[in-house]
């Protein structure tokens, strides 16, 4: 591997942190300066990062790690500071770079109570560092650290700027994730100690690429399954997968708008990213055996999330439950262990980020105006704030997986891939999942359109009919939303923007035995687990 020690990713990761430190030194009263710095840092980073990556990233070789940097970090445990980007991480990094400045802009003139823009913006910038860091980390410990860095700012964002039940929600969010990551770190450590090359020499490394090359060879079955299980808990809770999802609706409902947006747009992806970057490439054999269970939880999530949505009376909570359902599709794609499924998952992550982000933005703006999100009391948004209403309509359409918009490309290929999962994964089981997932799309349409009907259609209720506060989207809202709306359409029409980038990386991350057929399969001398159908894991 060519480590050319590129400074770029480190700059990308730590610039927000530097910005945050600078802001800490500036007195709280100087709000305008704080906003300017936050916007300059995040926006500048977006422009610079996007430009640099789009021009310098070698898209023809997007399966390879690029912009690598590799240096000593914690010598005693042989953990290194390795960062790099490939086609799987790139879309997610760009998404992060985009979402953060939009959140800053959105907050510009209405910070949630109790205001304090300084602290709020500092948290957002720290979050950005954590999120980018997670996506670029190529060392398990580094990944873990960044994975956790994200928790603190989000915890405070919910706990301080959240809704009435914020104390409960913030802690729940924190505890759940920490529980998962504690088991995850155990799994990482087990990998460190158990990974040995065919000659029996221990690898003793946390380097993700090196471990991927090792690919779980000569690890005992039970050890592999347990380690995968540990990572499953860590990533699965973050995704969140049924039945570890209960933190999500609470966190989303209580979080301030921007918090919800970041949570939905990026944070949930850290979990799914973990699966496709770490768990599956490193332990393909265990993944094969886990796949039916992951798939099962994924489809349960799809249906369950949808049913949860149908029961909601609160708009934001409904959107939160819809995340459970949508991330179910992503996980279903991942569980198939096929390029198709995982590409769909990568796409689904970006699409869900944009779409649910927009939905939360709109919900936040509705709350600003109506001071409630109770669906019963809303209605007639299209009459009172037509543009917002249309944007909501657009977002619901995108969210229900309308082809031509981004959501479709996360959903359909995921369902499709379930028809024909990887070698060793039961076709019968996954085809059943496929049908259930397809039913999930109907439910998705049901709850989303029902939401749209009850909030946007009809006449406004008397309570709000003549409320002067209810105005259409403001400048800041437009600016914050427009890029996401445009991207939803553009990605829907040109899916190859992401597929072509992610595909080589996804292919590289999957063990060749997962897809090999016939003679190739024999030539690779694949372990038995890839050959036989493992019914029910």
């Amino acid at each position, binding site marked *: 591997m060519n480590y050319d020690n590129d400074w770029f990713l480190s700059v990308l990761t730590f610039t927000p942190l530097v910005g945050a430190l600078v802001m800490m030194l500036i007195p709280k009263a100087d709000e305008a300066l704080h906003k300017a710095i936050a916007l300059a840092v995040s926006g500048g980073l977006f422009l610079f990062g996007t430009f640099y990556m789009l021009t310098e990233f070698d898209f023809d070789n997007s399966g390879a790690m690029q912009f690598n940097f590799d240096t000593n970090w914690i010598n005693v445990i042989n953990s290194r500071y390795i960062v790099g980007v490939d086609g799987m991480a790139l879309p997610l990094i760009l998404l992060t770079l985009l979402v953060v400045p939009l959140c800053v802009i959105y907050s510009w003139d209405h910070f949630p109570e109790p205001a304090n823009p300084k602290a709020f913006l500092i948290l957002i910038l720290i979050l950005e560092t954590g999120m980018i860091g997670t996506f670029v980390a190529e060392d398990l410990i580094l990944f873990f650290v960044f994975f956790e860095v994200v928790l603190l700012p989000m915890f405070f964002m919910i706990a301080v700027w959240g809704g009435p039940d914020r104390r409960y929600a913030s802690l729940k969010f924190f505890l759940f994730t920490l529980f998962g990551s504690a088991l995850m770190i155990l799994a990482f450590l087990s990998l460190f100690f158990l990974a040995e090359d065919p000659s029996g020499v221990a690898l003793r490394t946390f380097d993700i690429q090196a471990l991927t090359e090792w690919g779980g060879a000569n690890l005992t079955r039970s050890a592999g399954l347990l380690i995968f299980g540990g990572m499953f808990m860590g990533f699965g809770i973050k995704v969140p997968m049924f039945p570890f999802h209960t933190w999500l609706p609470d966190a989303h409902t209580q979080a301030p708008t921007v918090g919800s947006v970041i949570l939905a747009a990026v944070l949930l992806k850290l979990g799914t990213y973990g699966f496709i970057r770490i768990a599956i490439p490193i332990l393909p054999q265990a993944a094969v055996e886990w796949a039916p269970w992951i798939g099962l939880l994924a489809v349960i999530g799809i249906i369950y999330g949808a*049913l949860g949505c149908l029961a909601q009376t609160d708009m934001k909570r409904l959107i939160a439950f819809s995340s459970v359902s949508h991330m179910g599709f992503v996980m279903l794609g991942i569980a198939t262990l*096929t390029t198709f499924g995982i590409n769909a998952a990568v796409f689904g992550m970006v699409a869900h980020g944009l779409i649910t982000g927009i939905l939360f933005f709109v919900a936040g703006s509705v709350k600003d105006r109506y001071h409630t999100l109770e669906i019963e009391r809303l209605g007639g948004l299209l009459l009172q704030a037509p543009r917002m209403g249309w944007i909501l309509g657009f977002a619901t359409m995108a969210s229900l997986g309308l082809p*031509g918009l981004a959501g479709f490309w996360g959903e359909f290929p995921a369902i499709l891939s379930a*028809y024909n999962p990887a070698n060793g994964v039961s076709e019968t089981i996954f085809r059943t999942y*496929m049908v259930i997932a*397809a039913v999930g799309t109907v439910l998705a349409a049901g709850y989303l359109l029902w939401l749209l009907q009850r909030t946007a*259609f009809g006449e406004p209720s008397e309570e709000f009919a003549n409320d002067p506060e209810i105005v259409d989207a403001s400048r800041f809202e437009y600016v914050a939303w427009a890029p996401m709306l445009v991207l939803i359409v553009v990605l829907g029409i040109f899916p190859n923007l992401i597929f072509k980038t992610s595909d080589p990386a996804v292919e590289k991350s999957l063990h060749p035995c997962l897809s090999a057929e016939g003679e190739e399969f024999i030539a690779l001398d694949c372990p038995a687990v890839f050959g036989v159908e493992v019914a029910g894991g």
Partner: protein
Amino acid sequence: MSLSSLLLFAADAGPALPGYTFAGPWILRNVWLLPLIPALSFLAILFFGKRLPFKGAEIGIASVLSILALAIVANIAWFDHRDNYESEKAEDAAGLLLSDEYATVAIDGEPDSLLLSADAGEGGEAAHGSTAVRNEATWFQSGGQEFKVGTLVDGQAVMMLFVVTFISTLVHVFSTEYVAGDRRYTHYFAFLSLFTASMLLLVVSASTIQFITAWELVGVCSFALIGHWWEEKPNSDAALKAFLTNRVGDIGLLVGMIILFFSAGQTFDIVKINTMALAGEIPQRNLTIAALCLMAAVMSKSGQFILHTWLPDAMAGPTPVSALIHAATMVVAGVYMIARLYGVFFVGFSIEGSPVNPMALIGMFTLIFAGLLAFVQDDIKKVLAYSTVSQLGYMVMALGVGAWTAGMFHLFTHAFFKAGLFLGAGSVAHSVHSFDMKKDMGGMRKFMPTTYKTFIICTLALVGIFPFAGFWSKDEILVGTGGWGLFGGTGGNGNYTLMLIGGIFGAALTGAYMTRVIYLTFFGEFRHVAHHDDHAVDHGHADDAHDAHANHDPHEHGPAITIPLILLAGFATLIGLVNLPPGFITGNLESWQERFFHFYEPSAAAYFPAIAHGTPSYTLAIFASVVGLLGVGLAYFYYFVLVDRKSKAMGESLTELPNGPTSKFGILKAGHTLLVEKYYLDHLYTDVIAGGTKGPLAKAVYWFNQNVLDATVDGVGRTSVIAGKAVYEHIDQTVIDGAVNLSGVVSSETGAGLRKTQNGKIQQYAAYLFAGATLLAGVLIFVI
């Protein structure tokens, strides 16, 4: 043909593959322009429409006019390409049918049937199959494999291009007056544009995933336009219902397409899927399952029993929308899909040589069922809606019995006369501000002569009266069933006698319910109450315009409304002539026979099955016409004679006989008074017609429709909400979240318990310490 030769671009791109080429006329390779233009128009209207003098309508009309022109050019280019492409590439003629890749493809159809159309055009070139024109670009990739987006242009596609653009143009024009003054006039036109774009995308789709995309997009436009007046809940309910019902069908679409994707070796390519299906490279089981799944999609989109219930509700949308989307174009998408993936369906349902198959059965059942339902509607649009369902049943049945051309031809003719009927109904409703035939119409022929005449013509076409368009297409369907041992015809793909009977019976039903509509709408006296304040039905007007109308008699509208009607009536009259049956005329004009079939059926292409074509028979045509006329006659007698007489007697405009038959004549009693009872016919008619209206059959059907089918749809919705609530409250919040919270409570309470041991007594602490030490010692010494 000079125009087409101008556009002919003699590029020779790519190897010749069975049944398609990447070369061909420029316009055929670039049909992507057709969806693109209205798509851009959509954006333009959305963003700039409101600032324009005509609020965006001008952009919409300009775009549809331009694509209409392109569609016509494309058709002409296609005619030329169809006949001349092969001769230009004579050296490849052999390779065309059997390329290396598909060498196993055998065209095992009857040579005669293939050559039926090979009647030597002006050029006198050799007979050959049709060669589709393709163009494609990479859409996305996965697993290193690239998946294409592209256009597949053959007869079927260019035919549809014309239908869509033509109807769309007329509807645009019609709408400028019909929805004038509407609050969301601009949005209305924007969505018309978007719909047109989506529909055209669907038509030219070369891959199944692209097809799905367009399929969903038209659904969304339908949703948006049905719910155009979303201030009222019933409208948005109808929109939701339409969308959700279609989504249910889409499960089948997705699953079916996925099965085909993998069965055909990971491809979305429609041509390849068809080719492989026909070549027997896909297991029959897969094809059958896929075809059944796709059938579900057809049932929802094309309103086949039992997923048709959304379509009548969809009449909540503006009438021009109903004409365009819910009569002429979108609802035929299902039919179009069957035709597109005909190889799959043909093999999957074993259409050839069997007496019955699911598709034909569904089609037949739908056409009768919906025909019955049309009787009991008071809302003119609902009659037309059920009529559409019924006619879609014809098309599906036609495809189900292997009569591809007949089905497509019926789709073609139906588009014109049904659009004409809807627009006519819209014209009437625009005057009386209501769709209720019984309350608010009657005698309209006096006020609206143009509308009346065009409506009559379209009705004749629908009922299938010679020589109007519907006659030709319906007759072909009946011929195609191949089930007419009774009439001495030959050919066909199977022995679908049941379908034949159903089709003929349907013709009678059609005649009857349309006669009823004609009477209730245009005859009798105007029943509109002058100060009728119900604004709920026609929202096309702003309130002030509405009031201005209120105290005036209805009157004919301006050219924006009448010209489309006249054009459509013209088409309804003449368009049937494009596919005159073989043997109908002889001599020099013989080549004018079967033009539709010749140009539009992708014959002899490897992606299209070798279907057998029946020979028409005069007997059948006459018999079917007579049955149809019988239906008309019965209804005529009931309404135009009995009801009319009674009305005059009572001095008011009746809609039904006030004292319908309350007692049934027993068969025996009827038998012995058969010839002598002077009111026998009266009774017969009233029994049949009024019985159809109010009596057991139609009523039962309607009851079933409303209380079982429709209630099921609603019930499913309601049940999911209840299930959702139950899951959420009892499982999510109680069990799962409860477990989480419980673990917290248990920890906390344990903590509280342990805390009590910390009671501040120092000697107790000392005791703990020593006890701990001894306990540990005990454990380690005696246990471990």
